[in-house]
């Protein structure tokens, strides 16, 4: 137990090879590392997963091949031009980043934390661009052989981790990363090969693009959670904020006849839910979790009631908002796979990227962010240096609500063009999970949301192609992952210290 109760800071001896968790911790080097007991949790966890992987991908493998279609572009000429440019840019990026990585290591300095991740991302883009240039439309792989290779790699990684633990050393981050990637690839190949067709295949581009689309409300919701919880207010009401945002966007956009007004009203509606949350929990000091849970019920009842009484009576005048069309960014949208994901989005989709970057930079690289985090970690100290704790919290909760509200507008303005009862369908809770999985970090929350969106989309895709796994288990995946994450089996996610505790001055 002693090692596992350690904060994440202890896990990352300053080489900076840590995974994506870029909060302010991770700098400290614990001198006692060498003599400390190392937890067996990682080794055992990886070992179990490796055995599972071996059974699934190896012994239960299908003899069929698995096909992955690369997104087919609309204009082949434009596409290939875009692919060439991307290839060049990605090549330059990989070279530069790789050079920095190696040179920093040679000089014996700690490598900047963002470099490995950025290099890998650039390499992935490079690979995709190369596929686009080569004009590959479909990759077909033998599932049996690759399944066994994946199983062996998984077992090796788990064994290496156990070996390190025996030696009293910690498992470095890259082993976990490699394990995750190999597991995911092996799983995908296994799932696809289990399809009904004699030569089953799925569209990789469609899968990715769909994942991002499904992730949009999750990203907004989890960002709302990050903003609130970093300031020390637990926001369970994300679900309610999404739902009221969706409702308000639909009604206001229909009444005003303008989708952009609807979008703004969604933000206002989300902030309104937050206002109640902030008022009751900050001013009247009621337990924040209670307020959140109750608000979700209230919003669900309120919107369902109004939907049944007003909206169904009069759908033409109240529930026909129209759509926010997808906006192509010329040229860039034609890059294979990445293009449609990044550059063929609705306004809400682009706002999502902006929000992630702005909140990340704001929280971790500005004075404002430092203050917010101080309020969330140690309000007494923050108060002592003259920060108004409760005002900071109030403002943050309101901002969080507005952001979740915009996420809610996605339901009625982008994905479906009318409001229906409880249409957020528990995504607020998944957003909460994504925030925790992403360790209260905007980038982490974004990636976790993408993972959950991916699982969601994969589930519907494999239901279509038929699969060896019952779709209910795929649907379970995000929730199971979250339980594993909060139970500390995959790293340790630690909430801000003052999360959920109201601050009473004096």
């Amino acid at each position, binding site marked *: 137990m002693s090692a596992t109760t350690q904060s994440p800071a202890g896990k990352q001896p300053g080489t900076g090879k840590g995974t994506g968790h870029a909060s302010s911790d991770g700098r400290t080097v614990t001198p006692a590392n060498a003599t400390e007991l190392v937890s067996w949790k990682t080794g055992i966890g990886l070992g179990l997963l490796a055995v599972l992987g071996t059974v699934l991908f190896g012994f239960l493998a299908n003899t069929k091949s698995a096909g992955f279609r690369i997104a087919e572009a609309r204009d082949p000429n434009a596409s290939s031009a875009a692919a060439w440019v991307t290839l060049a840019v990605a090549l330059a990026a990989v070279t530069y980043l790789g050079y920095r990585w190696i040179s920093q290591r040679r000089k014996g300095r700690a490598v900047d934390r963002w470099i490995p991740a950025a290099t890998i991302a650039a390499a992935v883009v490079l690979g995709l661009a190369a596929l686009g240039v080569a004009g590959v439309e479909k990759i077909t792989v033998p599932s049996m052989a690759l399944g066994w290779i994946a199983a062996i790699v998984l077992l090796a990684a788990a064994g290496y981790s156990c070996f390190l633990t025996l030696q009293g050393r910690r498992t470095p981050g890259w082993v976990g990363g490699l394990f995750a990637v190999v597991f995911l690839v092996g799983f995908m190949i296994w799932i696809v090969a289990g399809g009904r067709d004699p030569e089953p295949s799925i569209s990789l581009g469609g899968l990715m693009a769909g994942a991002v689309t499904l992730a949009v409300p999750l990203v907004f919701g989890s960002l709302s959670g990050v903003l609130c919880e970093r300031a020390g207010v637990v926001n369970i009401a994300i679900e309610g904020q999404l739902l009221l945002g969706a409702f308000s966007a639909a009604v206001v956009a229909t009444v005003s006849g303008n989708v952009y007004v609807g979008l703004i009203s969604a933000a206002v509606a989300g902030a309104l839910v937050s206002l109640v949350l902030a008022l009751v929990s900050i001013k009247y000091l*009621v337990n924040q979790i209670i307020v959140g849970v109750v608000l979700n019920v209230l919003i669900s*009842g309120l919107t369902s009631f109004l939907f049944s009484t007003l909206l169904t009576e009069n759908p033409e005048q109240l529930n026909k908002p129209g759509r926010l069309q997808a906006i192509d960014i010329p040229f860039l949208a034609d890059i294979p796979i990445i293009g449609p994901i990044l550059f063929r989005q609705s306004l809400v989709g682009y706002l999502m990227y902006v929000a992630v970057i702005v909140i990340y930079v704001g929280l971790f690289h500005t004075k404002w962010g430092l203050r917010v985090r101080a309020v969330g970690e140690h309000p007494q100290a923050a108060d002592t240096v003259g920060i108004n704790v409760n005002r900071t919290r109030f403002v943050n909760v309101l901002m969080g609500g507005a952001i979740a509200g915009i996420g809610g507008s996605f339901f009625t303005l982008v994905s479906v063009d009318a409001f229906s009862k409880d249409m957020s369908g528990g995504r607020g809770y998944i957003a909460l999970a994504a925030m925790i999985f992403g360790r209260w970090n905007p980038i982490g929350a974004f990636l976790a949301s993408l993972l959950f969106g991916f699982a969601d989309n994969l589930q519907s895709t494999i239901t279509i192609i038929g699969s060896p796994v019952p779709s209910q288990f795929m649907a379970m995946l995000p929730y199971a992952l979250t339980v594993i994450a909060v139970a500390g089996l995959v790293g340790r996610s630690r909430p801000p210290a003052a999360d959920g*505790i109201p601050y009473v001055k004096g």
Partner: protein
Amino acid sequence: MSEKTTPGPQAPGSNDAAEPAEMQVPGGVTSEAVASDVVLDTAGGQMPPSAVPAATQRRSRDRDGGGSVLHEIFTGNVMVSVLSVLLAIVLGGILMAVTNPKVATAAGYFFAQPGDLLTEVIRPYTALVQGSIFNWAGTDLGAQLYPITETLTVSTPLICAGLGVALAFRAGLFNIGAQGQIIFGALFGAYAGFAWHLPLGLHLLVVILAGLVGGAVWGGVVGLLKARTGAHEVIVTIMLNYIANFLLLFLLTTPAFQRKGSTNPISPFLDSTALFPELLGPQFRLHAGFLAAILATVVVWWLLNRSTIGFEFRAVGANPNAARTAGINVARSTILVMAIAGALAGLAGVAQVSGTEKYLSGGVAATIGFDAITVALLGRSTPWGTFFAGLLFGAFRAGGVAMQAQTQTPIDIVLVIQSLIVLFIAAPPLVRAIFGLNPRKKKTTTSGTPGPRTGGVKSGAAV
């Protein structure tokens, strides 16, 4: 940034035992009663406020602390509860009035005939009462009394699950997971009910036992994770709700659970020996599960107020650090209380499959698990409070169905009223402020001696 100065409230392991919580004594700094209550409740800003505010328990006991009995009644919790319910009903009425097209016309000549407007608003509430307590339009006594038996039937699972949530609340745990625990209880109970064929009497006992075990397993997992790894129970329970739901949906497609010859995801009917006996004959749905709910309430009352482990639960809920220092095994209490809470929710699941529904389907838990949270909050987490809150919400549910049928008012209004009630009850100062009942800066804080602030001491390295 200094992140390590204050251990997190839910920091796992034995770390916090080593350093007893350094209390921030609020003495005399603020005169407002609310602030002192919260400081008391949060152990001086070390942990989130509990579901049952410390003030609730204190006020009801030491009445000697100044103020007449009359004053106590008017500013006390009973008054706040009653006012909360009233306020919620009025707000619900306004909502119905605003959205009712007939009211719009009635409001046109409001000043001429204010009665019409009132009638339109009162009509749904009349239907609600008619559908939940006594139907004076019924032809015979049976039809007249049918609504109240329906209320009791609907209340049964609400009370059981609500008790589970309330018990966990008292131990300082937010059990949002009643939904999943109900599903597991129903799953286990139903399987024992239709797959095994046992003699009369024994079969029902086995079914109940299976349901209790099912719920206890699903609740115990939460307690185990919380005690061993420090995983926050709110997150874990929310996630386990979904997992239980998907598991149920999956199982209902497997041959072991799906009804023979049916394409729908529903289980076979439970054996007649596995059902709760009907209390008032076949024309009423009321079954002996309600008696089980009463029994459960008594047991929980005894457990909390008369038993050693109940005392331990409450001590852990009030302040886990203090409880640990006093020699209470907090980890054991956490696991145990979650298992018992799960078992109670499991009983609710049994009441559903073995009493009301008589088979297992995907919607067996409906929204009972979430309603149970509001029930426990309304009942202020006391066993009998939860019991009566369960009856009230059961009446809302049963009456809501009748209301929707008679006046076309959507049943969702019940959700709105329920959540408003809980919101108001959770924030007594808000209600007091609305009704102008706030005690004007009466006695200063009752806790602790006025002393220097110690809260900032440990933060010496901060910023």
